[in-house]
């Protein structure tokens, strides 16, 4: 199956006429994603390589039946674009934009909790279901279809781990970047629950990092609800307290949010934690090999 995006995805891209939006939107289309519309206020009626542009998401949804939105607009407009997608009835919004003020995200998150729209991101590389659909900026050519569900707060680290798995012959059901911000639309728990229910996914790899207590809470969830094997990786063991390490959400506050605490919490609940990206791929390969034998 795969999760979140697949052959049924009909994608509307907010910001399709921008430089980044058109580059990645068209990349997604070449991969096979059904890109049905773009939205840029004031440019309705134009097209980008044949994809029609609308002034509003509502018009785009009415005209094309788009069910997924990808938001590729600058930070100060991104929260509005996500709310617009939700208001237009899109079931899934994927927000790539980095740099959205956290108070904007608090309001967006709280509002979306009261409706049916799921948000992935912001500050994320998007979602790839190999062989089916790519929504975002994940370089798809490294990945093939397979049984590993991969969920991560980071982009390139995901590619690193995914590539090491690929070198060992393992593909992916879906790769989900949930984003590196302190407040994101979907959590590890949300995505892992979907992987647990997904028939294609045989093993789950979660890639966390310093900051917050998501990983600790995910450890409890896995112990109670997940029967599939899970391998974890945590980045940031050497991060000093009080410093934001690139991602807005990657910060050790006082003694809270350390990599060690997260790794300990996961291991205490029986989740294997790889010490390096290579170690993660090897652990996953061993488990999948054992399952096949």
């Amino acid at each position, binding site marked *: 199956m795969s999760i979140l995006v697949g052959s049924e995805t009909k994608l509307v891209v907010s910001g399709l006429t921008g430089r980044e939006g058109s580059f990645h939107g068209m990349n997604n289309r070449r991969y096979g994603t059904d890109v049905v519309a773009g939205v840029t206020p004031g440019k309705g009626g134009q097209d980008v390589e044949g994809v029609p542009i609308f002034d509003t998401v509502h018009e785009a949804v009415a005209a094309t039946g788009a069910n997924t939105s990808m938001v590729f607009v600058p*930070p*100060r407009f991104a929260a509005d674009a996500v709310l617009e997608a939700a208001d237009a009835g899109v079931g899934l919004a994927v927000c790539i934009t980095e*740099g*959205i*003020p*956290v*108070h904007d995200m*608090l*309001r967006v*998150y*709280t*509002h979306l909790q009261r409706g049916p729209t799921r948000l992935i991101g912001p500050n994320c*590389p998007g979602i790839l279901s190999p062989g089916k659909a790519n929504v975002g*900026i*994940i*370089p798809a050519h*490294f990945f093939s279809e397979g049984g590993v569900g991969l969920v*991560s*707060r*980071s*982009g*390139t*680290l*995901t*590619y*690193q781990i995914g*590539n090491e798995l690929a070198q060992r012959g393992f593909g992916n059901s879906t790769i989900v970047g949930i984003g*590196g911000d*302190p*407040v994101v639309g979907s959590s590890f728990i949300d995505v892992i629950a979907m992987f647990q229910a997904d028939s294609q996914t045989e093993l789950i790899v979660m*890639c966390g*990092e*310093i*900051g*917050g*207590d*998501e990983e600790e*809470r995910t450890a409890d969830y896995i112990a109670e609800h997940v029967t599939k094997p899970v391998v974890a*990786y945590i*980045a*940031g*063991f*050497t*991060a*000093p307290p009080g*410093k*934001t*390490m*690139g*991602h*807005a*959400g*990657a910060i050790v506050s*006082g*003694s809270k949010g350390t*990599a060690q605490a997260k790794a300990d919490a996961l291991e205490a609940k029986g989740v294997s934690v790889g*010490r*390096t*990206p*290579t170690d993660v791929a090897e652990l996953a390969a061993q488990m999948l090999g054992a399952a096949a034998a």
Partner: protein
Amino acid sequence: MDLLEYQGKALFAKHGVPVPDGRPARSPGEAVEAAEELGYPVVVKAQVLIGGRGKAGGIKLAQDRAAVEEHAAAILGMDIRGFTVRELYVERASDIAEEHYAAILLDRGAKMPLAMLSRMGGMDVEAIADRDPSAIARVHVDPLVGFQDFHARRLAFDAGVANDLVRPIGALLARLYDVFVEEDASLVEVNPLLVTTSRDVVALDAKVTIDANALYRHPDVATLAGAASDDEQERMAHERGLTFVKLDGDIGILGNGAGLVMSTLDVVAQAGGRPANFLDAGGGSKAEAIVDAVEVILSNPNVTAVLFNIFGGITRCDEVARGLVTAFGQIEVKVPFVVRLDGTNDEEGRRIIAEAELPNVAVEKTMLGAAAKVVELAG
């Protein structure tokens, strides 16, 4: 970004949170001038982004001009837990009857603002929690509803504040919430929240963290950002738009993507090395950014070897390789480099580096191999 006490108090005053009258000062002369305006007694306070100022001797009461001059001279330039005092705040002294604690912060787990109040002010909040967790009243605030009177009443009654203080403390909390939202703060903390002998409530300290992503809405606060970093190398990186954090080791690190760079630091540490910095060259690292990054990394005299760890996605390894070759043409490089290029256009990137015949550059294919190599070269 963290604000100094007086910068935070300026925001408090803007939103009607009561604070004692005060003036910033950068020299003993300015401190005296401030004190003369305010009237004695005054408190001379070190302005640094770290707690424990009082214990370190960075906060002194002064009854007259001579005392202000003496304390200001002693405190300026003082080192408080690694932070050099460059600014002072001279404040009219307050008479203290009780010390409470108030804060509003972003609760990442709940994804909501969390307001807190305690009667046990004056000590660290973690120390209060350790001593008696029930001494801290907490309420979550729905960000779409905002801070209401009932939130204030719940906090005040749960914290057990005196009846005559329920209203004034509630009003202060409501204004503090305005600071939190309107200034895009992720933390506003008042410790101590002072109750005077005449039963007024006043914010005697201010700890404010502003969301760096929201600085475009706050140009006044954004201008404080450059001066906030104490470290010259961090300022240099900031000016060039690089995501950089200085560390205390000797191996310079560059990578693309925050998660991969964090992971690179960890892998180098596991191999027995000590990273000198975190530097994320970004998702689409272009040649020019690489030149800037190499200059910043090498400006740290402790660096004895440099590791480039690139996994090309959007970033193209050939672009990174060209940037490195350009950098070597512009900068005299005296330390060995280890370059790991994998992913998009990696073969071309490695070819470019090989053909440039750069002195002292080792090319590695894997992350672990590169980490082991750079640790060996750093000595």
